[in-house]
């Protein structure tokens, strides 16, 4: 099986071949042309020049449906499932089994789905509503949906972006089962260590051009990365190991919510990067949302500089200079249709950019401009709509928003999700710089290497509770995973580490 297409316009001289029975990884920085390539493959865009071959014969996809019928299925980064339909209804959407002409045959639908699920070995219930499933299970439904079409070629765009390590393993198992003598997988990912585990070959593209295809076993990840960015990455930004602990800035005690969190207590020091690790659904995002008042807190206290806070909504949190940067930048972090300037200034209009209700447009523009330079936000102008920026630059816009607000505490939820390797380094450097300047950072991360590398201390959560707190020196992938996978009933209540004595008496 092969596909070749030298010379597409947004892509040029592109060349990709997928062999039978292999997992081909496709890597490239954001904007390198991966998505365009996928859209061309599934017929969403047409090709200006060049051609495809599927199993040796020429192939011209006319649209996603046609591509699917030819055996090419794609799993997009954003899920295309209907949350209000069941697993089975989703899987057979558009080709539901019927009894007679008009009536749907739900019994047969669920039966077929059960068979498919059993064949794939997935822990799914056909009758469950998709909206109630975890992100990982929704991902499985996506995959099952693709496979329900008898796909020969399965294209997965960032399939693990929302998954934790344990779930990634399940996914990889699924991929290995799918890859047989007559099928192949194209796997797009930013997570380098995964490529090593799952792929047979790696195709690197850059700026719409084919760079080269490497045998996974005969290459190293730094080599792949250097092909991607076109340069060797200099030494990774490592956090500054603090010798003396800063004062306690924020302390959270006994935080509980109705649905998930149980007695969450921790402290955040000045100039500290406090990592939050744990599996998906462990409650890390919920902690952040409860602190900033986006969700209701059932019990527990939040104390800032020794003063008890009553935060009812994110506006209150912002007043106390606590900023939350959501994991879901596109739907919770940015106004995509508004320009960079509007986004950067949004939180600070009241304090900085208005007099008597009127917007001080000039001051706001100057400020945005200043931060565009300081954070190296790549955009033709600050009047560019946020939608047109790459993931890394969008993240910088959100960061700029909170820096303009002069926040002391920044809560980053998955700061590098969906951001390419080069931009990731920049975000890391930025986090380190912020901490050095005395900002306190809570960093929720599902990427263990990231959490280990960046954090001064790591709080590990499991089942809505804190199951362990590790210092940078104590932390290792194994230890974090140990705490992250502790069953909630086996968690020993975490007492603050010995050095936290000054946090008493509150």
């Amino acid at each position, binding site marked *: 099986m092969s596909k070749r297409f030298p010379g597409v316009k947004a892509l040029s001289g592109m060349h990709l071949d997928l062999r039978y029975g292999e997992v081909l990884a496709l890597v490239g920085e954001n904007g390198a042309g991966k998505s365009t390539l996928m859209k061309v493959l599934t017929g969403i865009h047409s090709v200006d020049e060049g051609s495809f071959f599927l199993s040796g014969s020429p192939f011209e996809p006319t649209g996603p449906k046609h591509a699917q019928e030819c055996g090419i299925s794609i799993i997009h980064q954003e899920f295309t499932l209907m949350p209000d339909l069941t697993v089975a209804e989703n899987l057979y959407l558009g080709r539901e089994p019927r009894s007679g002409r008009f009536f749907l045959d739900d019994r047969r639908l669920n039966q077929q789905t059960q068979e498919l699920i059993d064949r794939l070995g997935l822990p799914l219930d056909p009758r469950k509503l998709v909206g109630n499933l975890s992100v990982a299970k929704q991902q499985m439904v996506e995959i099952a949906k693709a496979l329900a079409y008898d796909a020969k070629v399965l294209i997965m765009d960032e399939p693990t972006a929302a998954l934790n390590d344990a779930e990634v393993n399940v996914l990889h198992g699924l991929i290995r089962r799918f890859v047989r003598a007559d099928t192949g997988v194209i796997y797009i990912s930013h997570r380098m260590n995964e490529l090593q585990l799952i792929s047979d070959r790696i195709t690197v593209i850059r700026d719409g051009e084919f760079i080269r295809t490497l045998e996974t076993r005969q290459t190293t990840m730094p080599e792949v990365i250097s092909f991607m960015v076109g340069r060797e990455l200099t030494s990774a930004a490592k956090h500054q190991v603090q010798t003396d602990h800063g004062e306690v800035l924020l302390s959270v005690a006994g935080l509980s919510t109705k649905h998930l969190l149980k007695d969450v207590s921790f402290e955040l020091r000045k100039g500290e990067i406090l990592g939050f690790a744990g599996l998906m659904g462990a409650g890390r995002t919920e902690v952040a949302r409860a602190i900033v008042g986006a969700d209701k807190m059932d019990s527990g206290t939040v104390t800032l500089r020794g003063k008890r806070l009553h935060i009812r909504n994110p506006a209150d949190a912002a007043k106390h200079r606590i900023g939350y940067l959501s994991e879901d930048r596109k739907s919770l972090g940015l*106004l995509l249709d508004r320009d960079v300037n509007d986004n950067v200034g*949004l939180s600070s209009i009241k304090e900085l950019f208005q007099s008597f209700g009127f*917007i001080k447009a000039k001051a706001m523009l100057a400020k945005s401009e200043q931060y565009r330079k300081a954070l190296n936000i790549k955009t033709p102008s600050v009047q560019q709509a946020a939608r047109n920026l790459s993931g890394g630059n969008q993240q910088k816009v959100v960061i700029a928003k909170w820096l303009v607000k002069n926040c002391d505490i920044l809560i980053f939820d998955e700061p590098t999700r969906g951001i390419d390797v080069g931009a990731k380094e920049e975000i890391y450097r930025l986090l380190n710089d912020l901490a050095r300047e005395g900002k306190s950072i809570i960093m929720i991360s599902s990427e263990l290497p990231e959490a280990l590398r960046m954090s001064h201390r790591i709080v590990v959560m499991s089942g809505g509770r804190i199951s362990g707190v590790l210092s940078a020196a104590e932390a290792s992938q194994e230890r974090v995973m140990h705490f992250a996978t502790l069953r909630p009933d086996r968690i020993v209540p975490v007492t603050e580490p010995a050095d936290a004595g000054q946090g008493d008496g509150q």
Partner: protein
Amino acid sequence: MTASTVRAAQRKWGGSMLSASGLKDRLQQFLAFASLIVIFVFFSAANSNFFNYANITSILFSTVVIGTLALGTTFVIITGGIDLSIGTGMTLCAVVSAILVVNLGIPVPLGVLGAVLFGGFIGFINGFNISVLKLPPFIATLAMMLVAQGLSLVLSHTRPIYFSDQPSYTKLSTGKLIPGLNLPNAVIILGIVAVVAGVLLNRTALGRYTYSIGSNEEATALSGINVRKWKITIYTLAGLFTGLAGVMLSARLGSAQPAGGTGYELQAIAAVVIGGTSLSGGKGSIVGTVIGALIISTLNNGLQIMSIPQEWQNVILGGVILVAVYADMARKRAA
């Protein structure tokens, strides 16, 4: 970027409110404006009684009520909401105005102020129901539409209230303040409130938050903006415009007619939509709304002059709305 580029950007009114998408917004306004011109040229050619000072003034005069309602609704629609209560709300404000001025004998300026504030109160209730009780805007304002309709009849004992002894009240609408210029005060007032609305939307924090909420309400809240408060403010603002529209209508008619009002809300929403404001929120402009309102009243006037029956006028207006919105969407798809 240098200071001069910043200034150049600044010159484009509202500074950052315009951007890559700013150009598109202006194109829409141009499109609407071009349609208005085409309609004008068409009627001028079709009937010799159309294009003269008296008739153009009467078009402007008949734009006042719909225009005032549409200005307030523009804010609501940009947030992604809707306000169905403006039609009967306007009637209720007219009744309140009449009760204050005619029945209670309160001086006209205070009576007018009372009616406008009462409109603000209706809007405040809408805003409270929508942002605190979390009712969908459609339902909350539909309920208010019925409440206002009923209350108008209750307060007026289902009888019109006449401003016969209040010449200064009717002068608000039909008087001609500027000597020599044969322009009714109502048109001048519409001009003033349109400018006020434009400044509010483009130059103030209120306007900025209106766009933000419409673009992405949750992201706006997470950015530390008190969305709840601002939404109440925006609906209250729309209510103030409703109150003013009630005053203008009753001043023009010389009476408060408690049975009317329904249908106005849809005409106002139509004006906003024709003007390029998106019902899904985040986009829109006051200039567009003014042009949209003018298109509606020009059509009504022109068709009337051509002796086309009222029923057919509505059919044509409906067609115009479809074409306008379709053109807008087609343009967006092309962009």
